């Protein structure tokens, strides 16, 4: 073969340095918004109420838990504004669980797109997380309305809500990225995740205050592990913002670090196998 000048050529499979990769992601930011909007629009397409289900679904869930835990079991002892307390827990926990579960399916559900076009695959879990955030935005405005109606009123703590959402989102996105790669390798993951989240829900004080059991019924190693649970701490932060309940400053700092760490790890973990997502 003749020798040719190849100085202007680059390999199609060269892994981009992180900075260039992030630039490619940024160039396609409109894609990362358009896809989730399309997903949200089509989600309840075949139902009578259509997009109203984005509100109806969480409201019904609150009604169920309020009936069981608030009325029947009276586990609301010692909690003021139990209905609001519960609503915050459910909305915020759902954001995490649906982001991670949706993230898990984001690669396997988009084989068509992946086989047709080369683009940074991280955009797929990102677009799931964005779509969940849009739903969450609707839920938050509902929550703000409830808070006003119930006479609790909105406080200046609300100014810190974006920071709380940022911490929460970095945790969710990290989880979505990890779940996406795991599920691409083992489809079983998608089956396991709902059970893990059911367990996590009880350990995060979503529907009853597990915080009150720490140091009493729950002691020793179990207490240390549960105390670290970032989801529980993040829910505490939202409750602090809306209701002014107690929040642990040290735990908040740890939670922020854990959430950023999970995002950092998730991004690297996802990218390390990105080259093969189009295969098979």
């Amino acid at each position, binding site marked *: 073969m003749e020798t040719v*000048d190849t100085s202007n050529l680059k390999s199609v499979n060269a892994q981009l340095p992180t900075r260039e990769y992030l630039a490619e992601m940024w160039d396609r930011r409109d894609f990362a918004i*358009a896809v989730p909007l399309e997903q949200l629009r089509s989600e309840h397409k075949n139902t009578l109420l259509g997009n109203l289900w984005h509100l109806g679904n969480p409201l019904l869930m609150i009604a169920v838990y309020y009936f069981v835990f608030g009325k029947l079991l009276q586990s609301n002892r010692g909690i003021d504004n139990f209905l609001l307390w519960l609503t915050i827990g459910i909305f915020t926990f759902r954001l995490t669980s649906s982001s991670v579960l949706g993230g898990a399916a984001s690669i396997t559900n988009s084989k068509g*797109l992946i*086989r*047709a076009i080369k683009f940074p695959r991280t955009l797929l879990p990102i677009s799931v997380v964005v779509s969940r955030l849009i739903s969450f935005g609707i839920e938050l405005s509902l929550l703000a309305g409830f808070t006003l109606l119930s006479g609790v009123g909105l406080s200046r703590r609300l100014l810190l809500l974006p920071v709380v959402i940022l911490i929460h989102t970095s945790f969710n996105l990290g989880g979505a990225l990890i779940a996406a790669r795991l599920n691409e390798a*083992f489809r079983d993951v998608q089956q396991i995740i709902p059970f893990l989240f059911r367990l996590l829900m009880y350990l995060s004080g979503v529907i009853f205050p597990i915080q009150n059991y720490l140091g009493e019924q729950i002691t020793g190693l179990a207490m240390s592990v549960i105390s670290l649970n970032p989801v529980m701490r993040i829910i505490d932060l939202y409750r602090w913002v809306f209701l002014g309940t107690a929040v642990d400053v040290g735990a908040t700092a740890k939670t922020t670090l854990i959430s950023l760490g999970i995002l950092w790890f998730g991004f690297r973990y996802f990218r390390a196998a990105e080259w*093969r997502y189009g295969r098979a």
Partner: protein
Amino acid sequence: MTAPIAVSIRDLHLDYEISEDRRAALRERLVKHQGTGKRVVRALKGVSFDVRAGDSVGIIGSNGSGKSTLLAAVAGLLPPTSGDILVSAEPKLLGVGATLLPGATGWKNISIGCMALGMTAEEVDAQIEDIAVFTDLGEALDRPLHTYSSGMRARLHFAVATAMSPEILLIDEALAVGDEAFKQKSADRIDELLENAGALLLVSHSLNEVRDRSNRVIWIEQGRLRGDGDPETVVKDYRSFVTRATAKST
């Protein structure tokens, strides 16, 4: 004088590892796939060639010869097992089998496809009418993609893939499914790209199409290069190979 190199493929090997029947599940990984049906399919076994700017290269070969794998590899969608693929610009692949978002309308698929290729929302807004006119799909654009025939889908994909005037265009069987009017239109669009010093790699089973469209033909058989050169000659060699193979099997 020779034009600069657009694509350089060097000793490209590509193996698929497939687990039989289905995707490997956790159980198989845990039991160290002993006795499970893992098979390695060697789709490409050392392919090398260069494509220059302005070249229009047809790729022919029997079913399963590795043509589509080659194209997906050049697009960067399938990583080679060994060897390298060098390009002067990001190649854009247009595959007829590809489905973007099956549940979304044709309009949505155009805009999301263009955004995935790197257009901004404003650029899409500015061009979407032209792209839609080019597809000639009319009111069908309001329907979800899964209701399209393969020919309609190919039109949409072709329009999206060529909207950004890629320097290197890869086409996999896409044009053969279009009707005559669309074939003419797409031929004109490809000529435009080639005039702007682009390069085209075209996989097709239609030997006439390959001969008309290409100034060079590459013949791949069982993952290896069997012919490379003037379209008339290579197509003739391939035809007599097919005739011999059919004669043998009957």
